[in-house]
């Protein structure tokens, strides 16, 4: 009786290069939103170290949701190690842009980003992650539900709440600007 044939492992569906190319910016932005700019690089690097090790297991995983889960765990551990969570973002200008910025206007985009970050900082963590994933990164409710392990209706409910909060946030600032 001969030895059993070697088990052939299926090739991983995701190559590291592909994950880098397609998702690096996304992971870095999520890390930045979770832990701030100063720590975003570290969290991103740790996330991709895990991606590299886990690649052979990632056959049918919806990658963006899975990446978010990893990034969140890495961020949490990093924050716990440092014990303090600080974001030293610059204060946005007193008057917000009155309409969405032109994408060719880099300065306007940066101002809009700072306003969005200021708003996101006012949210609870659950609404924050939902708003970031749903509206800023464009994940579907199902993807988010899988990533954070909650039912889809819960994600939809949180998304509605976060969106209402964003609209209220902007309206309030518009009103403040118009006030004499």
């Amino acid at each position, binding site marked *: 009786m001969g030895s059993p044939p070697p088990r052939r492992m299926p090739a991983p569906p995701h190559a590291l290069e592909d994950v880098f190319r397609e998702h690096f910016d996304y992971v870095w932005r999520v890390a930045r939103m979770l832990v701030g700019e100063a720590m975003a690089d570290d969290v991103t*690097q*740790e996330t991709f170290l895990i991606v590299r090790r886990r690649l052979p297991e990632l056959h049918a995983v919806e990658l963006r949701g899975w990446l978010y889960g990893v990034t969140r765990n890495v*961020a949490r551990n990093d924050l716990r190690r440092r014990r303090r969570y600080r974001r030293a973002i610059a204060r946005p200008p007193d008057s917000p842009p009155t309409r969405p910025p032109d994408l060719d206007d880099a300065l306007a985009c940066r101002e809009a980003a700072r306003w969005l970050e200021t708003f996101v900082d006012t949210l609870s963590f659950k609404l924050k992650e939902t708003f970031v994933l749903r509206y800023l990164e464009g994940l579907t409710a199902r993807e988010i539900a899988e990533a954070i392990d909650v039912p889809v209706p819960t994600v939809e409910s949180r998304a509605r709440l976060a969106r209402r*909060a964003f609209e209220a946030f902007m309206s309030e600032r518009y009103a403040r600007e118009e006030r004499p």
Partner: protein
Amino acid sequence: MNDDELEAWAAAYRVARKPSAQTRRAIERAVRDERSARASRTRPRHALRWAVCSVGLLAALLAGLFWGSLASERAQRTAPEPPSLTPDLNDLAPPVEGLLAEGTPRPHTDVLDASPGASAALDVAPASTTPRPRRTAKSGSPGDVTDEMRLLRQAQQRLRDDPPGALELLRRHASTFPHSPLALEREALVVLALCRSHAHREAGRRARTTFLRQHGDSAYAARIRDACDAPDDTVMVSP
């Protein structure tokens, strides 16, 4: 705000928040080189860390024994006045969450109420096994607490004459230092500022109720209890 408008904001955010090419290259290189680097670096690091910890613990233990015996000997001889280790720390307490859920006007409620939740949520997330960071820490500076204190002191100084200005400073503190160890101090000052602001006095009373319900045994409770009913010049909290 319609979907297109929100997507336009999101697109602007994604344009503005892109990692630099240099960052990307550095991280990609580090991840590719991780396997060989890990084998050569982590074990000696762990060994060194254990050695340092062991020596440190042993030294601390010996020092504690030595000072303990020395102190008891001195106490027997002279019985000196024990030094106070916490001179002003009664006013600097750990953070609270959800203080003003009922009482504060929206601009303050949003900021003060929500941010601590982020850490709470992060703390209860499931554990994962992740490698230690390989890059040096870039956040955290010894001046941060000083900055926090300065901001709170400025807010306190404005309590008497400019409660709205004090509230603005406290809001700024909450957004800049959402997980501050001085959060309870901040929340107490918010209640006082609301109570001193004629426009927000009713909100101040509700905030006071919430504060006392959650932190009735804190060092501030007595002062907060009388806050909204006291004459303006009798309310005082010292950061």
